[in-house]
């Protein structure tokens, strides 16, 4: 949206005023940091995460090149970019692999985040890689959730294990695991119902599923449009489930996606994949550098 000014032009206007004055002062850096802060807040990065981030970048900026540089704006952008990329980077998008198959992957997240879609995309990705995934329908609450997974499974030719909506999700997950073993499927992907991180009963259900199938991978599915709450959501899910990774969905939209920073900052978990559409195509790997540019509007 045009309302957002890119960080580049913001910083140009900060440092443009300095032309002729010669030297960049600490005050100038402070002013530049205010612009960086605004850009990050407009991109939905959590305000507490922004605070820490600004402190770190400022230290680096004052400590080194900026003050001496002829192009302070460029130097700051470079530092911000690198710090952001580093923050979101780390371990690359690799799925865990169980020593003894099947590898069990559990999907979790808020209502409507994109879990069921991401489950199918993950299954397709694995199938294209020569694997034999099985999908498990453990959402017994949302109307037609099982049907949705079955239709998607049908579209990509991946079997869906279901026991209807009258059986406890914990039992469905356990039996799905047994079924995967019996049928020689090497990956089991468990689709769960959407739930709020503050819903104690449903969070307990997730813990029991976790206990029941001992997943190798627990992926939190996060809508890229989420705002400031991203930190609380990610933190709660992480505390209760020991997440191993994040899937960021709906990145085909025009959102800046600052949640990527928030979620990574509070969980330390790598963003393993991104969802780029409603159609069932393989999940795509996450690129921290592209995400940094997107968040900064460059």
């Amino acid at each position, binding site marked *: 949206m045009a309302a957002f000014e890119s960080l580049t032009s913001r910083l140009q206007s900060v440092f443009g005023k300095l032309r002729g004055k010669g030297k960049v002062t600490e005050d100038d850096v402070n002013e530049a940091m205010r612009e960086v802060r605004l850009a990050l807040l407009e991109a939905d990065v959590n305000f507490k995460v922004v605070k820490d981030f600004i402190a770190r970048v400022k230290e680096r900026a004052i400590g080194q090149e900026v003050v001496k540089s002829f192009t302070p704006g460029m130097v700051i952008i470079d530092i911000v970019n690198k710090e952001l990329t580093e923050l979101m980077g780390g371990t690359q998008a690799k799925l865990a692999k169980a020593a003894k198959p099947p590898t069990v992957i559990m999907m979790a997240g808020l209502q409507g985040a994109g879990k069921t879609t991401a489950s199918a995309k993950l299954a397709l990705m694995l199938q294209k890689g020569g694997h034999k995934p099985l999908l498990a329908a453990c959402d017994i609450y949302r109307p037609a959730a099982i049907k949705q*997974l079955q239709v998607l499974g049908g*579209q990509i030719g991946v079997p869906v294990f279901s026991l209807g909506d009258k059986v406890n999700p914990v039992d469905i997950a356990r039996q799905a695991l047994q079924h995967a073993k019996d049928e020689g499927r090497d990956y089991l992907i468990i689709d769960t119902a959407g739930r709020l991180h*503050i819903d104690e009963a449903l969070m307990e259900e997730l813990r029991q599923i976790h206990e029941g199938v001992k997943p190798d991978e627990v992926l939190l599915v996060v809508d890229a449009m989420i705002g*400031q709450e991203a930190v609380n959501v990610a933190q709660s899910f992480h505390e209760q489930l020991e997440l191993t990774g994040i899937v960021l969905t709906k990145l085909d939209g025009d959102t800046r996606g600052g949640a990527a920073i928030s979620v990574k900052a509070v969980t330390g978990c790598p963003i393993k994949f991104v969802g780029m559409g409603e159609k069932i195509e393989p999940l795509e790997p996450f690129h921290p550098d592209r995400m940094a540019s997107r968040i900064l509007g460059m």
Partner: protein
Amino acid sequence: LRRKKIDEAFYEELEEILIGADVGVTTVMRLTDELREEVRKRKIEDASDLQPILSEKLVALLREGADEGLRMAESGTTVILFVGVNGVGKTTTIGKLAHRFKSEGKSVLMAAGDTFRAGAIDQLEEWGRRVGVEVVKQQPGADPAAVMYDAIRAAKQRGVDVLLCDTAGRLQNKTNLMEELNKIYRVIQREMPGAPHEVLLVLDATTGQNALSQAKLFGEKSGVTGIVLTKLDSTAKGGIVVAIRSELKLPVKLVGLGEKMDDLQEFDAEQFVHALFAGAIDKEAEAGSAG
């Protein structure tokens, strides 16, 4: 707010509360500038005098246009179209609203305009069974505008009081899908003069700044008249509706508070604003009892 004195730290804390509620940094800075002005003019010194002023300001802003409730047809069928991005709660809200109209004794029909998403028609039909309302549908993959055409004809024939039209979720930057929505909108307008009586943009309260772009672009293509703010049972505050209200003049009409058929309420501006500051008030209570 904990602080007693109005100083820079006070404004900073206030800013953080509002930004933390997703009000958005531009709107927050405008609001705090206005407050500073107020403080100067009225010579306010105590922070406790300022908080109610801000709350009143916000309530007045949000209340405008929201008070009247849903606009109903003077005679014949009221048509309500639901639009919004993926997964926000359109279908669920339709189910809840159908239930509400039914319990008011109205006859209701639902149109399965999401012919794209896997299981979408079944989901609406399941809601139909739950609340005892019929669904007009075609096959998955059918033209959604054709579904609306059928639904309006059926609504006229049967003389139903309310027709609730579901649409597929779509991101506002997808030109083709937005044109498809525009076509749906125009078919409804063409087939029944005066319709749609409301076009409700469904927004997920956990959404950040992108909601503003949603409101703008859906407004352009489908003439949005109001907002349904869903998932307010979460810890998210949905503060972006403040920015939407002040920039686009769109009122919030309904709020979603859960996944069950009764979890739908009228928007209450006072309660909403109270909840915006609720976290801060809790902190104050904690600090009070600890000290």
